[in-house]
């Protein structure tokens, strides 16, 4: 195999797309499980003590936002990979 004449531009695009799909799946599933746990325990806490609902509500929203930012990081990385890859000009030439 001649390493110098491989179609690196095509390989680059294929690898980018192949990484993007499983990456977004993995990056959404794991925070989703975490968010489900947070929502579940928040619901349990409110049903046990409804008078503390306001305080629990804001804390639950806060933790959901924290967990959501993980999925957003993955989304940002995937978007950069697909649309604005900094290596693109290096591999594909100009």
């Amino acid at each position, binding site marked *: 195999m001649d390493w110098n004449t491989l179609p690196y531009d095509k390989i680059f695009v294929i690898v980018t797309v192949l990484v993007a799909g499983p990456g977004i799946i993995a990056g959404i599933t794991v925070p989703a499980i975490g968010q489900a746990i947070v929502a579940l325990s928040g619901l349990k806490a409110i049903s046990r003590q409804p008078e503390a609902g306001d*305080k629990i509500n*804001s804390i639950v929203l*806060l933790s959901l*936002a*924290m967990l959501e930012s993980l999925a957003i990081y993955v989304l*940002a990385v995937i*978007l950069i990979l697909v*649309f604005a890859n900094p290596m693109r000009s290096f591999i594909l030439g100009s």
Partner: protein
Amino acid sequence: MPRKNKQTLTLILVVVLIIAMAAISFSLRSSGDYEPEPVADEIAPDLVFTVGPIQVTSTVINTWIMIGMLGFGAYLIGKTFKVRPGMLQNAVEWLAEAIQGIIAQNIGTENSNLFFPVVATLAIFIGVSNLLGLIPGLHSPTPDINTPVAMALVVFFLVPYFGIRTHGLWGYLKHYVDPIFLMLPIEIASEIARTFSLSFRLFGNILGEEIIIAILFLIAPIIVPVPMMLFSIFTGVLQAYIFTLLSCVYIGGAVKAHQSTKS
């Protein structure tokens, strides 16, 4: 005809109408022979003009339009304030009371007037700029990374400002090394990381929403994107609320830093 049957008939008519509109838009798309624009071009801001080294993009123009609208609206609403509130004044007062509730819960009730102007400005600015994309012809400033980073940097500098104002310079710096000296790098890293997460959360949420709407426009432009745009109202307001809540929590962390050891 009984009433129930009439309702069912109306429902079926509406569903058929929606499906017909979607089919028309699909067929319009497939019969036309123009190239669909890449999604990235539709999202990215355009360069309008340059002032020396500074590039003024369409994001900045949209932000100026929004600031003008907000200022003029605030002037109009503020001019007509009465003791007995009307509908519009009620809405504005509800918004102000909601923001004051967030401040009271996370920073503290004493001198909450000190924090109210800047927190309310952040909340209203981000909320309106998330919703600005719904007006035809205008685009939200928030899917451009510069706007969320600017907002997060405002919070990044507000935290030491209010901390020093409350506890003095020495008192604020002392909370970095509060239990032991080893906490210093962790505290600094967390300040930088939360600025990143604050800006990227807003940016990623609104950008993802805009990309989904743009893709739906490319597939079927007439009625299919409407439910997603309705959902984007919810996302925009929720993200503004979360940004406000988190900045209040961060400011509260600096302001309340030494209350437990003092008392």
